[in-house]
């Protein structure tokens, strides 16, 4: 491919994508490969560690482990991409804090020295959306669109940590009305619909899901209501943890808040690269869209067949 080696990234997997939603991992790999980006493995990477959980327990631990993960990419000399808002939050915040506070950097490197590592700050942690939107650009992506979806109404869910804290994110301080994700979604012909409290949190983060599942489910219930009221066919997100909360959380909300909900929610939840991949003409198998029904109790919990059915005719 002529574009080969134009972009080279270290792929930071995190936890939820590889270990619970592998379809997200495989679709990112498939799409980035299709776009001519080379993906290197960050061998031996750990949990980022999760910003709302481990950072909330012990900030130094969070910082040191995050720095270790970054050093793996530094050894390869490539920028990191991650498909997870949480991992992005951790890696980027840690990276910026270490860059701006020499004392912290010194502390972290004292610990890292014990395992023969050193944080330099030589590479940038990026979100896959950042790589798609800023490194490659919409025009480049448009060139790969093979199938355009018609009448597909998408409720785009940004999640929080991809845009906030805005002073540590690459979107020019914009966090009240971002459009980058909608713009990417809309190159596929799908319509990104406006819905109430679009930027609201899914409810999973900040250790809330682990603490009180019912609270997270109530966040999701509210979001799902607003999405359904606006007539969404599918949800498109860019974070495996939001994905989990909107998928599994949809089931949970349906049961916990049965009385409030009425007709149970069953809005398919599609990861950004799954939607893009389909539009690019990539094999749905590679995008993790075809479920092996022999496997029981696995993701996705909300069937996505209605979505595939809807777009099937447009994929030829």
């Amino acid at each position, binding site marked *: 491919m002529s574009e080969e080696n134009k972009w080279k990234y270290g792929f930071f997997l995190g936890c939820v994508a590889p270990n619970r939603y592998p379809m997200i991992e495989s679709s990112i790999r498939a799409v980035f490969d299709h776009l001519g980006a080379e993906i290197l493995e960050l061998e*031996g990477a750990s949990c980022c560690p999760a910003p709302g*959980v481990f950072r909330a327990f012990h900030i*130094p631990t969070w910082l040191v482990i995050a720095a270790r993960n970054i050093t793996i990419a530094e050894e390869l000399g490539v920028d990191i991409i991650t498909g997870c808002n949480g991992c992005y939050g951790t890696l980027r915040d840690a990276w910026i804090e270490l860059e701006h506070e020499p004392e912290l950097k010194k502390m972290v490197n004292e610990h890292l020295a014990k395992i023969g590592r050193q944080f330099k700050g030589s590479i940038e942690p990026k979100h896959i959306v950042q790589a798609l939107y800023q490194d490659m650009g919409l025009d480049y992506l448009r060139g790969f669109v093979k199938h355009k979806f018609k009448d597909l109404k998408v409720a785009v869910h940004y999640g929080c940590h991809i845009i906030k804290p805005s002073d540590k994110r690459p979107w020019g301080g914009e966090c009240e009305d971002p459009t980058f994700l909608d713009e990417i979604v809309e190159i596929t012909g799908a319509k990104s619909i406006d819905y109430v409290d679009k930027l*609201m949190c899914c409810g999973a983060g900040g250790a*809330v899901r682990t603490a009180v599942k019912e*609270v997270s489910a109530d966040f999701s219930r509210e979001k799902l209501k607003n999405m359904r009221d606006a007539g969404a066919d599918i949800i498109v997100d860019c974070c495996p943890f939001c994905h989990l909360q909107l998928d599994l959380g949809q089931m949970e909300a349906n049961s916990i808040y049965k009385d409030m909900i009425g007709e149970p929610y069953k809005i398919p939840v599609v990861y950004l690269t799954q939607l893009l991949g389909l539009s690019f003409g990539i094999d749905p198998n590679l995008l*993790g869209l075809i479920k092996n029904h022999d*496997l029981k*109790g696995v993701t996705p919990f909300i069937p996505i067949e209605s979505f595939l059915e809807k777009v099937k005719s447009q994929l030829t």
Partner: protein
Amino acid sequence: MSENVEKYIKRKVYKVTSSRITQKFVDAGLEKLRACINCGTCTGSCPSGRRTAIRTRSVLRRALTGDETVLEDIDIWLCSTCYNCYERCPRDIPVTDMIIKLRNIAVEEGNILDAHFGLANKIFYVTGHGVPANGEANKKWQDLRESYGLPPLPPTVHMHPEAVKECQELMKSVGFRDLLDKIEKIKEKEKAEAEKDKEEEK
């Protein structure tokens, strides 16, 4: 004492107990909190507060005035770290970071939910992942991976036992292991006391 005394006399006068938490905030470089004008933008922006008892402003106010009971309050764990408050504070106070710092202080005192402690102690420390896929119990996830043409385990710590060691080494070095041990002891003691109380009740 008559029933009505119990019911109606609320002699509780709020006492500012100490500046211990406040001092810890300041030590962490978060003294900006002192500039809070209690406008409520944080509480009003909080998606959690619309359904739970967390009142962001009140939480920080309590911390600022040294009310240590805030550390035991489950409310501080109901923030989903969405950063709305951080973005909108007119005094430029990093509100979300404050809550995270407050949680750190709470954890130090042993105020951590069992579920969170288990996640840190039994899962993250042991496997290096927050949500692992290794082991027999997670077989279905390995199968799921394989069904999409991926290796059963990702090339993370799961495939690199020496990387798990590295992480544990770091966690020891930075004091996380000691913290976890300390909490474990506190939790055991609390459990023993609770059982003792139960016995006595019987």
